[in-house]
């Protein structure tokens, strides 16, 4: 009996830790949508996977004009509702692996002079054919590490299938409403020359959180 209770405690702790590992992606208070497969039937795809975006600045024109990597990330959703109240949000935020302040994580410095770039250097643009994101097709920046940029985060339920630019957040699928349940993402970095950035290799993670409301 003691062995059984011990195993149950371990099982509970593993599940509990698993939940907390989602970080700023807060656990939902409601249960109106089906969970992600295989636990549920909803789906959240990020393509390609794994998704690594590499910016290399080795020309003067790269520094002055910046570099843009377009359409390198596509998010596709299939949301199954358990009832008519199924509503969800999709947000993005940063992870710099606990680097100081609002700085990028330094992987390899090439020298010692200069300053470490901050996270507001990266610009992100999200769009889809129906224009459902809050800031559709507009480059946005993360002011700091606690910034959470909403992609879809409407107060009321907007049903799918109209493709009228409203912030669709109900049940639906990229399979039949691709323009409302898919999101293409562009990335842009424009360092300039006057900021005196320390040469080196830096890394940042952008986390996309899908959660029901």
């Amino acid at each position, binding site marked *: 009996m003691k062995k059984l209770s011990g195993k149950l405690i371990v099982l509970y702790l593993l599940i509990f830790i698993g939940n907390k590992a989602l970080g700023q992606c807060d656990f*939902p208070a409601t249960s109106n949508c089906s969970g992600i497969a295989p636990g549920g039937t909803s789906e959240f795809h990020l393509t390609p996977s794994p998704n690594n*975006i590499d*910016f290399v600045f080795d020309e003067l024109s790269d520094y002055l004009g910046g570099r843009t990597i377009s359409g390198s990330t596509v998010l596709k959703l299939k949301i199954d509702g358990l009832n008519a109240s199924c509503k969800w949000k999709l947000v993005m935020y940063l992870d710099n692996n606990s680097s100081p302040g609002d700085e990028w994580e330094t992987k390899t410095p090439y020298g010692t002079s200069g300053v470490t770039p901050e996270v507001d250097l990266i610009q992100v643009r999200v769009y889809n054919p129906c224009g459902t994101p809050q800031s559709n097709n507009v480059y946005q920046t993360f002011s700091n590490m606690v910034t959470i940029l909403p992609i879809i985060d409407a107060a009321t339920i907007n049903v799918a299938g109209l493709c009228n630019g409203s912030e669709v957040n109900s049940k639906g699928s990229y399979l039949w409403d691709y323009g409302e349940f898919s999101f293409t993402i562009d990335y842009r970095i424009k360092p300039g020359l006057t900021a*005196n950035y320390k040469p080196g290799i830096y890394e940042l*993670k952008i986390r996309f959180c*899908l959660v029901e409301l």
Partner: protein
Amino acid sequence: MKKIILLISILSIITISSYAQLIDEKNVTVTMDLQPILQLNMSTPDQVDFVFDEIPEYYGGITKYAGTVLKVSASVSWDLYAVGTSQNGNFWDVQMEYNSTGGGNAINELPLSALELRQYGANNYAPTATGTYVDYSTPFQTVTYPVVIPLAGAGQNSIYHSANPYTAPAVDEKYIQGQKGTAILVGEGAPGGSYLTEGGNTSDYYFTIDYRILPGLPAIFPCAGLNDNTSEDIVTANAAGNYAAPGVYSMNVKYVLLEDQ
């Protein structure tokens, strides 16, 4: 014990059931490789010739206005200096001597500092430089005859010279921009930027260089000297009555752009 098992089972069921709720997260890793850029664009002839075949040219010298235009673009803080060099780092290389040795008092050791520079666009990033002159922005000195040797102010425009041109000049030497030292907060070195975006030919990234050689008559190069005004004219460096041996001489001028150091 039964109560404990019951409680754990309930908690587990709640937790497991909560997994049926909609929540998931995906990640994208962004890598940024910032490679240092130091780019110096130079407009100048491959060879700048000074031919002294008239008496007024000896007296007044020959000036090549805007002989070189330097344009800088850098992603890191930087220094820029000019260095005159030759085989031994002190005297011009002798390519040919005319009329044998040119007489008993003729000397073929012409100081590299005989070449004078004047830069347009002053050095604005040398707050702790200790030399008499921090750059080449001082107007060329006017020489009156007969010349009093050693000339006061000798070396004020003389090019920094060295046998090791890639060793950065000391803190008491002339730089075109910047100085020896890395205290960027006090301005020891120019910040990153480009003449393309920072104001073009009036910016801290654009320099026009004039060249002058003034042999004097007799040809002793009275303006030649070090940055502390120590004269290097031929008489001071040798003996009264000495002068430059007629001939063809050459030296090399390097413009070195480097990360602030």
